[in-house]
């Protein structure tokens, strides 16, 4: 098992090298001239050229790349041109916000979708199966900004149960000391239950918005994979041995059905992490998605590069975790790791 993990770790290295190269090239291939943008609309050719030299954009691509890698090794992702802040700091501040929101949404969705999928498979064709289908289809067909706005309208504007959708904490609360960057966890660690309550109430609506959206793939995959496993011969053996339903469904069927579900979870997570820009916009969430979009619009290389790199690294790490989970669940994977 440990050897398998070590091997996978080694395999990450070429992945990361590829990621760095592609990130660099992709951002250079994007349309737009950052020098022109920063010189402003009134600047003449000379001024633009000056800025270009200052940014190092006049050098050959390979030199730019060398400098980029060198900076990267020193933990420097460059400075944002529009805010002047180091990209590393910005990402460090914003990534936990996105990650907390996405994880929270994903867990919410998992808690609903997995049991729903199991029930739908066990009672195939029953009302619960149809409910599962309707809920999942509705969830995935409503755009997140619409679900988000709807939730805000109902729970904040009409009912007033929820605080104003303005970021991670309301104006009167102070952020907990940064340990993990996740407000929920940090506030518990530092014993500030008031902050915990405040940040949870902020998190609920955007969390549900994401959760509803990601219900469909998880529920559908759970159902399909459960159906396949329930029809398999070892489940028949388990039934013929008189094992009770709970053991058959959980220990025998669900553990075997989990592999594709975990793959789906990984995909949904990485997808949501980058793609929840709209939710971040609706709830004024200081996340990494909105940061990246703003940088992209202003042709601000460094943050875009940093964002893509962070996402790629996250994706690689996520895949590693999924592989390890596979090994934990399925002894056969351990063998040929």
């Amino acid at each position, binding site marked *: 098992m440990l050897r398998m993990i070590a*091997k996978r770790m*080694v*395999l990450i*290295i*070429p992945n990361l090298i590829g990621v760095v190269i592609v990130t660099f090239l992709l951002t250079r291939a994007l349309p737009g001239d950052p020098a022109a943008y920063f010189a402003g609309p009134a600047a003449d050719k000379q001024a633009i050229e000056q800025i270009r030299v200052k940014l190092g954009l006049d050098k050959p691509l390979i030199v730019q790349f060398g400098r980029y890698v060198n900076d990267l090794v020193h933990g420097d992702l460059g400075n944002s041109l529009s805010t002047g802040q180091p990209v590393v700091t910005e990402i460090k501040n914003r990534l936990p916000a996105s990650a907390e929101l996405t994880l929270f949404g994903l867990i919410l969705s998992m808690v609903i979708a997995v049991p729903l999928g199991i029930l739908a498979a066990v009672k*195939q064709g029953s009302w619960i199966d149809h409910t599962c289908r309707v809920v999942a289809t509705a969830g995935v067909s409503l755009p997140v900004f619409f679900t988000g706005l709807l939730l805000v309208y109902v729970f904040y504007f009409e009912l007033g149960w929820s605080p104003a959708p303005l970021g991670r904490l309301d104006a009167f609360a102070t952020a907990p000391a940064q340990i993990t960057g996740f407000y929920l966890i940090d506030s518990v660690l530092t014993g500030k239950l008031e902050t915990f309550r405040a940040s949870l109430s902020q998190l609920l609506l955007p969390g549900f918005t994401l959760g509803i959206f990601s219900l469909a793939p998880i529920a559908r995959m759970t159902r399909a994979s459960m159906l396949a496993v329930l029809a*398999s*011969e*070892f489940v*028949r*053996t*388990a*039934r*013929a*041995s*008189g*094992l*009770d339903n*709970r*053991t058959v469904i959980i*220990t*025998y069927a669900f*553990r*075997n059905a989990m592999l594709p579900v975990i793959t789906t979870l990984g995909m949904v997570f990485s997808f949501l992490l980058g793609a929840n820009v709209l939710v971040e916009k609706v709830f004024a969430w200081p996340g990494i998605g909105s940061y990246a979009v703003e940088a992209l619009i202003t042709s601000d290389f460094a943050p875009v590069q940093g964002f893509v790199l962070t996402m790629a690294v996250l994706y690689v790490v996520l895949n590693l975790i999924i592989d390890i989970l596979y090994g934990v*669940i*399925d*002894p*056969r994977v351990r*063998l*040929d790791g």
Partner: protein
Amino acid sequence: MAKKAQKPSKLDRNRPTSMPLLDVRDLTVEFATRRGTVTAVKNINLTLAKGETLGIVGESGSGKSVTSYAVMRILDRAGSIAEGSVVFSGLDLRTAPESDMRDLRGREMSMIFQSPRLALNPIRKVGHQIEDVLLQHAQVDSDAVSERAIEVLEQVRIARPRERYHAYPFELSGGMCQRVVIALALACRPQLLIADEPTTGLDVTTQKAVMDLVVELTRERGMSTILITHDLGLAAAYCDRVVVMEKGHIVETAQSSAIFKKPEHAYTRKLMRATPRPGVTLRDLLPEGESARPKAVAKTAEAKAPAKKVKGVETPLLVIEKLVKEYPRQGGAASLAKIFAPKPAVQPDMFRAVDGISFTIARGESVGLVGESGCGKSTTSMMVMRLIDKSDGLIMFDGEDIGAIPARSFARLPLRKRIQMVFQDPTDSLNPRFTAARAIADPLLQLGGIPRDEVRGRCEALATQVGLPLNLLDRFPHQMSGGQKARVGIARAIALNPDLIILDEPTAALDVSVQAVVLNLLQDLKDSLGMSYLFVSHDLNVVSMLCDRVIVMQTGKIVEQGPTEQVMVAPQASYTRDLLAAIPHPPL
């Protein structure tokens, strides 16, 4: 899960023994399908006395498995008992509540299934799976359960049970897995054991070991057994009474000693005739009155045969010399991991799947390659087929060293046409999205070099040749029966007039009566087209009927080869004798 104390059994084990343990009356099982209700079995009557062993014999679709599922009440969602009663030890199983059934299953009545590897949870240790059953039926306290599980494993003769307790099914051989399934079924000492094709897919020697074990354990405990099988010989050898089923009906019930001597029903006679056994010819397998050679084949025979005979007889078609195939013992680690590994990878020790074998196949000769799983017979056939590369040795085909040509480039050579293959599973070896005609046409389109508008005509000629009705040519594999699919596979293999056909257990997945027809077809085709066969099989009886010579392989080596007659009647190697002895012999 709250462990219930051992409930007083609802069943009275001390009833007079004259009452049958299981009494099935007028059982009718129906399945709800999209096209309405289908009756799977109708008016089945069965009784099973205490300690008796009953065989249920029939071909696929005869309803033998459905009957047993109905007894256990583990039919699929769509299936239901429409009529009749199932009384087990005085308890009506049809009306018993599900919770009672759950208590009965595994404790009073157990089942073992075919394909033992699939019958076990792949990601749970076998010891834990046995514990699940023991705990479910409150056979033992939870602190003593692992000792008890090891004991149960020991009872089914699993060597080193303490170690095997921690094994996953994929780490065990097929025979070992079946022992675990038997352990699972017998852990709670039930009164009734239903064995559904328990040895299908196992080697003959393993089959014998498994069946002997089942018989010994059940006899020792006074259990009743139902053995469901397609193999009349197996049933007759191990059962007191045999029930023969056809298309959902019981056609005959008799003592197994009587059924071979005096089969009453025509279907039983047909089954018996079709069962390969020593001392009969291929023609004997066909039903009475059908032993004449199919007309279509006979006609093409005359037209084709002379053309091939002209070729030189002096050199054998295929010469294999000291052929070796080695595999690294450890699974090939990812190459990238090797590059980044701190030390250069240690040369992995090699496993010889095929270990220096030599044999020849003459023109028009058919040679049988026999051995148990893992003996290297499939590896050999793959190398001759040029699908994988040899490690060492020589493969000469018609004077040409084809072993030297890498497997990748062989596919593009004209030689490819001359060696073709018929695969084991007729269903899996056909593209599910190709019609029969398209499947047969595939080699013609790839290598045939004939005009497209002539392809259809050629397909029809081939279909006629293999006895496939022309109206089936536009069907997809799932719309055809096993025998029809086998014919498509054969037509595809002979489409390019090959000189050598490798038959990889071509009838292993077929019912005996279909197998008889297919074997005869192969024989006729060989006679008419003058091809050579390399027939790979684990079944000595089948091989002996079709082949001129037999090669017996064990652990990568040839232990014996010679004319069929000699190998079958006077085997030299002790391994061959073991193989022959393991074939179930009906009490004649």
